[in-house]
């Protein structure tokens, strides 16, 4: 009896046509991209501009202007570069046409960064709190510690801790008439809304930063996943994207007050040190530190942290071993232990980088917290300054209450300083403009505090703290703080895009450099070719003509899998390529099963045609069961995996599914065609 194969042949033909249609854009994109790379390299060589810069210019449509500017005084190179640029632009248009339908390469193959941001809930509720007393800080620290455990909800912990501290939530958030449950709901809603708002701000920042096709998606309630393909300077990108960019203007406390506080800290520390040594000696009146003098030569020497904080072991501080020494001024250590850690840097307090942690620890200790005025806090400068062979951070005592925040900004631009102090001329700065409300407040604040210093804070770090020389009526302010062009530009971007609604932190980063990506593609390609050749050769050797049929089926399988990747817009990753290679081995299994069955039947004395029929019939359910269970685990993998692993699961799944079609339907049609032409007495198997 002849089987009617018309339907099967139509199906196979359709599959081939569809595959060609799906794979054409990928083929064209790859070809054009190779050509474009060649032109890019040439332009980069003639113009001396980096590939990154050229790509950026191309994307923003100002490649020709850029080249004209760069080669202004090298007129001989310009025509060549422009001609190449013209070709590049034409190619780029072609690529843009095909690329959306081409198979997407994962970040691990093209290089790039995968970043997961999470709303920093502890910081968020702290920012929202209307009243931050000692108990509040205590509760929040406990919450932070407990919320680190997996599968713990931050807000559940918060409610528990607040309850065990026997206070009501309304003491810190919401208003008195609200129930605790309502306040928690509001806080949760705030977190969720913030994620939405942050998503927009991130998109805005990334667009300005100039990344092609960034992917910014929300994950769950509190997370945002950002995927940036092809960027090279990840550190800079992270800085722009992740920065909360909370801008504040706060008054610096007068030097007399600051000195007074330092004296008190010295006394408190001395008492604590004496107390822990079981020494009953009374703390002597400490001498004030003259912070107005120029950085003096310190008699610095390295002292272990345990000497500084007797009675506490470094084990409970959780600090790394390498931070166990600090630079102290021996002469001052006994009488003024805090002054021994710090020095003077112009009019400010300068702290050697090595001492920063120790100073932080002093400032956070309960004895010291009591002597710092409640309306002020110590904050650090955002950058270290090199002085002789040591790096210093500045430490300021500023008013807790900000005079003005960045919400009133309307614009921010990076430019080279012109006016103002002569020493700042030619330096990069960021000038800001405020709306009328902001300008009014700014005018009042500056008017009332002439000759005091106004600190400009970015995320609670002090960028600069200039003196207020006069009232500033027009709502214009300038940030300068030893920035280069890039830093100034980046700062302007984040200020323009606005502060994040809630602070976020990066909780996961996976970055692949462009060179590793290229290597991975090459290694993946090589392994795929070698793997394919070995399997094909083996099948041919073992099964001869039938092996050839199985090999054709395998080839068809690979083509269809790639077409499916394009159709479903799946991403090809390195593990994905591994999955395809693995399916080479597994896909032929179906044919091995069938062929072994046919051989058995032939040995049993059946005719070729009957043996083929029986072989396919008997092997079918085995193949089905085996592949289905295989697909089950691949599906679990798809659910569980992130990025690259997902790519693996997808290709494996496609490979298995397609092999059911190619190994069974396609090979059967060929056998039927062979047996229909003439009566076969033997089969090459």
């Amino acid at each position, binding site marked *: 009896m002849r089987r009617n194969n018309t339907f099967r042949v139509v199906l196979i033909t359709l599959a081939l046509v569809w595959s060609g249609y799906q794979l054409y854009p990928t083929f064209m994109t790859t070809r054009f991209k190779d050509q474009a790379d060649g032109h890019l390299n040439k332009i980069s060589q003639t113009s001396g501009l980096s590939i990154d810069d050229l790509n950026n210019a191309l994307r923003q449509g100002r490649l020709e202007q850029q080249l004209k500017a760069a080669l202004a005084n090298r007129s001989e190179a310009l025509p060549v570069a422009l001609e190449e640029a013209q070709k590049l632009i034409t190619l780029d248009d072609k690529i843009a046409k095909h690329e959306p339908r081409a198979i997407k390469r994962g970040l691990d193959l093209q290089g790039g960064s995968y*970043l*997961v941001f*999470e709303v920093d809930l502890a910081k968020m509720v702290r920012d929202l709190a209307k009243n931050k007393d000692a108990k509040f800080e205590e509760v929040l620290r406990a919450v932070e510690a407990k919320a*680190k*455990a*997996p*599968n713990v909800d931050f807000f559940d912990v918060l409610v528990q801790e607040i309850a065990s501290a026997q206070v009501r939530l309304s003491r810190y958030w919401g208003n008195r008439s609200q129930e605790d449950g309502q306040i928690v709901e509001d806080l949760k809603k705030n977190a969720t809304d913030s994620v939405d708002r942050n998503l927009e701000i991130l998109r805005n920042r990334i667009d300005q930063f100039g990344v092609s096709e960034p992917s910014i998606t929300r994950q769950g309630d509190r997370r945002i996943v950002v995927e940036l393909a092809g960027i090279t300077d*990840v*550190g800079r990108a*992270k800085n722009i994207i992740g920065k909360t960019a909370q801008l504040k203007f706060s008054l610096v406390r007068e030097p007399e007050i600051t000195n007074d506080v330092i004296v008190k800290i010295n006394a408190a520390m001395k008492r604590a040190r004496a107390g822990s040594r079981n020494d009953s000696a009374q703390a002597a009146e400490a001498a004030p530190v003259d912070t107005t003098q120029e950085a003096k030569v310190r008699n610095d020497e390295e002292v272990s942290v345990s000497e500084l904080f007797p009675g506490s072991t470094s084990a409970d501080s959780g600090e*790394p*071993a390498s*931070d166990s020494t600090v630079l102290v001024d021996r002469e001052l250590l006994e009488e003024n232990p805090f002054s021994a850690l710090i020095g003077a840097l112009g009019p400010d307090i300068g702290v050697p980088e090595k001492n920063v942690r120790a100073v932080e620890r002093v400032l956070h200790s309960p004895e010291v917290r009591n002597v710092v005025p409640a309306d002020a806090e110590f904050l650090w400068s955002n950058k270290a300054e090199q002085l002789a062979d040591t790096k210093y951070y500045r430490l300021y005592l500023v008013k807790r209450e900000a005079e003005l925040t960045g919400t009133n900004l309307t614009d921010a631009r990076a430019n080279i300083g012109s006016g103002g102090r002569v020493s700042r001329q030619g330096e990069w700065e960021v000038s800001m403009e405020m709306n009328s409300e902001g300008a009014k407040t700014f005018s009042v604040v500056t008017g009332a505090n002439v000759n005091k210093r106004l600190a400009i804070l970015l995320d609670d770090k002090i960028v600069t703290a200039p003196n207020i020389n006069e009232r500033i009526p027009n709502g214009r302010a300038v940030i300068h703080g030893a920035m280069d062009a890039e830093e100034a530009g980046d700062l302007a971007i984040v200020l323009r895009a606005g502060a994040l609604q809630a602070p976020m932190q*990066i*909780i996961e*980063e*996976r*970055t*692949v*450099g462009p*060179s590793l990506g290229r290597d*991975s593609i090459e*290694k*993946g390609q*090589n*392994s795929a070719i*070698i*793997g394919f050749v070995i399997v094909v050769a*083996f099948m041919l050797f*073992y*099964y*001869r003509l039938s092996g050839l049929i199985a090999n054709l089926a395998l080839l068809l399988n690979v083509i269809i899998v790639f077409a499916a990747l394009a159709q479903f817009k799946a991403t090809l990753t*390195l*593990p994905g390529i*591994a999955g395809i*290679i*693995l399916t*080479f*081995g*597994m896909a*032929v*299994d179906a044919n091995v*099963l069938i062929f*072994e069955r046919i*051989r*058995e039947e032939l040995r049993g004395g059946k005719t070729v045609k009957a043996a083929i029929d029986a072989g396919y019939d008997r092997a079918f359910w*085995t193949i089905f*069961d*085996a592949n289905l*269970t*295989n697909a*089950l*685990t691949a599906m*679990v*993998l798809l659910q*569980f*995996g*992130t990025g690259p*692993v997902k790519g*693996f699961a997808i290709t494996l799944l496609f490979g298995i599914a397609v092999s059911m079609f190619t190994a069974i339907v396609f090979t059967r049609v060929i056998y039927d065609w062979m047996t229909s032409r003439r009566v076969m007495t033997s089969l090459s198997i």
Partner: protein
Amino acid sequence: MVQFFRETHIDFMQKRKYAILASAILILIGIASLIIKGGPKYSIDFLGGTEIHVQFQQPQDPGAVREALAALGYGDAEIKQFGGREDFLIRVQQQEIGTQISDNILAALQKAFPSDPGEMRSVESVGPKIGRELRSASVWATLISLFLILIYVSFRFEFIFAVGAVVALFHDVMVTLGIFSLLNLEVNLAVVAAFLTLVGYSLNDTIVIFDRIRENLKLRRRDNLQIAEIINLSINQTLSRTILTSLTVFFVVVVLFLFGGQVIHNFSFCMLIGVIAGSYSTIFIAATLVVEWYKKHHLAKIKQRSAVAVR
């Protein structure tokens, strides 16, 4: 016709005691190693931390790299040199500062080796919370897939077959995990993916033999064959397929291992062990369990059961 195996008549079931002993010893050694080393050697995927792969132009001295890091306070960083001595893997477990670490380290290297600052090949940074989440997700993924298999196989075959299959899979995972621990290899996300894949692969093998056993149970009922004989026959009949498929898969996995590169090295090694363990466990663990179970029950009951074996 090329044929590696003509009709074989190997008595696998008679050798099952030795096989089980060998498996038990291997697994026990693996477990001992796991206990001594305090569990599997997790990568930063599960522990949290930062790992940076840097490639220099010239071979560099690990001591100099360490010095550069120590100046930054990362003296306790784990530094591994590989490839042609130009490649370094720097790992820091310290977590508080988050992803700043990688930028700091790269900057420090730039300062310490100004003429050959080293190229960033990859950075992976995982927060401690994410690490714990991934760990529990991995365990769940493995358990869920084993559970799904248990359900599917008991639906398609008999429950005892499903138990045999799952025990065999568990065996494969334990053996691989043990060998990873013995060789001090790291378990990362890709390795977990490899575990799941080899679970699927090993199962594929098991199903093929179970299928044959089921078929033979129906056919040979009248011949009054012992279950051990039926299983022996089934294994022998499918032996050449088992070997052939194992070979093709083994070939491609070896190719991946040799040519796939550093990124998927542990993944392909895991698959390599898994393919061997998978083929072995199908014959000696899954089938053995079925035989043992049948022997403990009445013969009459067996016959009834096998008569109504599904489908």
